[in-house]
């Protein structure tokens, strides 16, 4: 009797295991296209990980509510399986493996950050799983010859070269002197390479080239050098910590530079945390709500901003906007491929040429988006101390005129 019970439990366990594995072992279940994503929901990237997830979820809801994805005359809806990669590249790679080989996912969305995308890309490549990513900008991702990786964002080397061009333009086309302070991580070093290219191209001169250690939040030594050398442009890239530290110490040490350009201003909530001290900082951004790109799902940047704020209770940073755009790219590729065959979808992705509220999207053979320039906004404050980010370059989308040179601290 007891033996019978054991055999019965064993058989039922096997049946349950088999049935669940069959149910999940498919890319398309019923009318659902299941995408997989390892996202940093905990750990040091969790803030931006949540922005990424919110961006994905917003697009999934919007596409599903507006008719879904039409493939082979049938309508499908998007669904995403999420796992928390704990902001850890090793964990992210394990989860990508699990999504593909255990959950049967055949199409992936990218994680947050270049480092984690670098960890996942070899796995998706090995299994031939197309991955559209929205938060890995490092140039090294696009030079490895990956065939299944597509990034909707502009690569890191394009982040701040616009600032050098702008400074040269303001200097009547003559080269400028540039001080650089970049953190020693893959992303910031890629931004640095882009700035170096721009310096070479414009006949400018590099006067300081400091590499900021990851574990330090003091850049007083670099700023003293800046005070000595008096460069035309100071360029800083060190994620949110770098942006906050730079503004704090520049204002405390009264460092006067005609142009200050940096990355991660909106992620650092510069104008909120530093108020008027952050005024005149130029910030590289993948997206801004005032850009005039349009699509059928989110209409334009302003509408996206309003809808996102209504749904999640905060204004969308560019990390959320680009994540939403990744879903629009997948939908477009599925419909053009008219199939769920991975190779056909991959080819359709490679041939993408579309406009979304986030910007134009067209992929180079390396997988990076080559049709969307970066924008530069400048922090501008009114007399009451209320600060706003206004686009100043490229001129096509400028909503305000660049204030240059930055007034000295003694005159503020």
């Amino acid at each position, binding site marked *: 009797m007891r033996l019978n019970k054991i055999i019965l439990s064993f058989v039922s366990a096997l049946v349950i295991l088999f049935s669940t594995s069959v149910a999940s072992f498919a890319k398309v279940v019923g009318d659902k296209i299941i995408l997989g994503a390892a996202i940093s929901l905990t750990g040091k990237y*969790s803030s931006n990980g949540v922005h990424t997830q919110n961006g994905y979820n917003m697009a999934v809801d919007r596409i599903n509510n507006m008719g879904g994805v039409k493939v082979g005359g049938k309508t499908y809806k998007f669904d995403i399986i999420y796992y928390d990669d704990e902001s850890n590249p090793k964990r992210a790679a394990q989860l990508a493996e699990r999504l593909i080989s255990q959950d049967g996912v055949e199409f992936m969305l990218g994680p947050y950050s270049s480092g984690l995308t670098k960890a996942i890309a070899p796995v998706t490549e090995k299994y031939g799983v197309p991955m559209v990513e929205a938060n890995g900008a490092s140039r090294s991702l696009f030079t490895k010859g990956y065939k299944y990786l597509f990034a909707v964002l502009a690569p890191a080397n394009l982040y701040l070269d616009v600032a050098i061009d702008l400074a040269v333009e303001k200097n009547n086309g003559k080269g400028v002197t540039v001080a650089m302070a970049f953190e020693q991580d893959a992303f910031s070093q890629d931004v640095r390479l882009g700035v170096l290219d721009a310096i070479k191209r414009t006949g400018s001169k590099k006067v300081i080239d400091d590499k900021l250690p990851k574990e330090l939040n003091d850049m007083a*030594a670099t700023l003293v050098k800046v005070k000595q050398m008096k460069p035309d442009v100071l360029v800083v890239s060190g994620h949110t910590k770098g942006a906050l530290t730079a503004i704090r110490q520049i204002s405390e040490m*009264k460092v006067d530079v005609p142009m200050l350009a940096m990355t991660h201003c909106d992620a650092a909530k510069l104008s909120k945390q530093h108020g008027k001290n952050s005024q005149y900082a130029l910030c590289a951004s993948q997206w801004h709500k005032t850009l005039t790109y349009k699509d059928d799902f989110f209409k334009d940047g302003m509408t996206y901003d309003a809808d996102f704020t209504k749904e999640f209770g905060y204004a969308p940073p560019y990390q959320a906007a680009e994540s939403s755009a990744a879903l629009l790219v997948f939908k477009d590729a599925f419909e053009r491929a008219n199939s769920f065959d991975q190779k056909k979808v991959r080819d359709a992705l490679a041939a993408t040429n579309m406009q979304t509220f986030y910007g134009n999207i067209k992929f180079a053979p390396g997988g990076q988006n080559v049709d969307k320039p970066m924008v530069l906004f400048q922090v501008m404050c009114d007399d009451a101390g209320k600060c706003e980010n206004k686009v100043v370059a490229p001129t096509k989308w400028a909503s305000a005129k660049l204030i240059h040179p930055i007034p000295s601290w003694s005159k503020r």
Partner: protein
Amino acid sequence: MISVQACLDGILLGILFALIAYGMALQWGVMNIINIAQGDLVILGGYIAYFMYLYGIHPAWGVIVAPVIMYFVGIAIYKLVINKVVDRDLFISILATFGISILFMQLMNFAFGADVVLANSDYGTTMLFNNNVVLPNSKIFSAFISILFAICLVIYMKKSKLGRAIRATAQNARAAKILGVDTEKVYAATFGINAALCGVAGALISITFTIHPYMGLPYTIRSFMIVIVAGLGNLPGVAMSGMGLGVFEEFADYILGTEFRIGSVFLLLVLILIYRRFKLSKKREYLK
């Protein structure tokens, strides 16, 4: 003028680091515990000041509130974990405090989010030597408060009953116990005082630099190095080595470049350890 600026920057930075190292030296000397969670306690203190700032209270008040809260946090950590490892070998205590460090990082990340934050003191700037040397007042304030707390602690250790008990336990725990010192209470108080010092330092760091749940480790490493250089039980040595390291770092940054800043400090540590070993081996020969 660059060298004056570097010296002053280094001294101000060093004094702040010395305060954290001071707590570590005290606890290491008394309990023989290397606290890997030292930096995380600092960051937690920073968040206390940050939240005061968020609620409209000036973050400088954090230097009073944070140590009080952190003292009890320290006592709680001692009662829950440290008292179980205090008599074991050093390796076990390193493992235990490493675990506490990971737990604190995750809890802070869960509770406060992963954003880098800071508290603005709006203290302004002091210009010296015809505006050629610039010192943020927040750094001067931090150094002043650090020195104040260090002096108070030295006096407390010398004059108070608990201070004497702590010193007696550090010299010989068994003898102190035989003579009626409640070493359990002394250990708890020592850990609490260390956490309180971390709380002060954290509040000052939120005013001077930035804080983030995962930023604790550099502070642990730095204070560990200061204690190694100064030696245990050598409190003036901790202050001197803190300032010395700060100045050395700033100069290394100017001369070699920022990328070699941390590397040069580690190189200095290795050289000091080799020198000490050399000195010790000479001493052994003499004893023969």
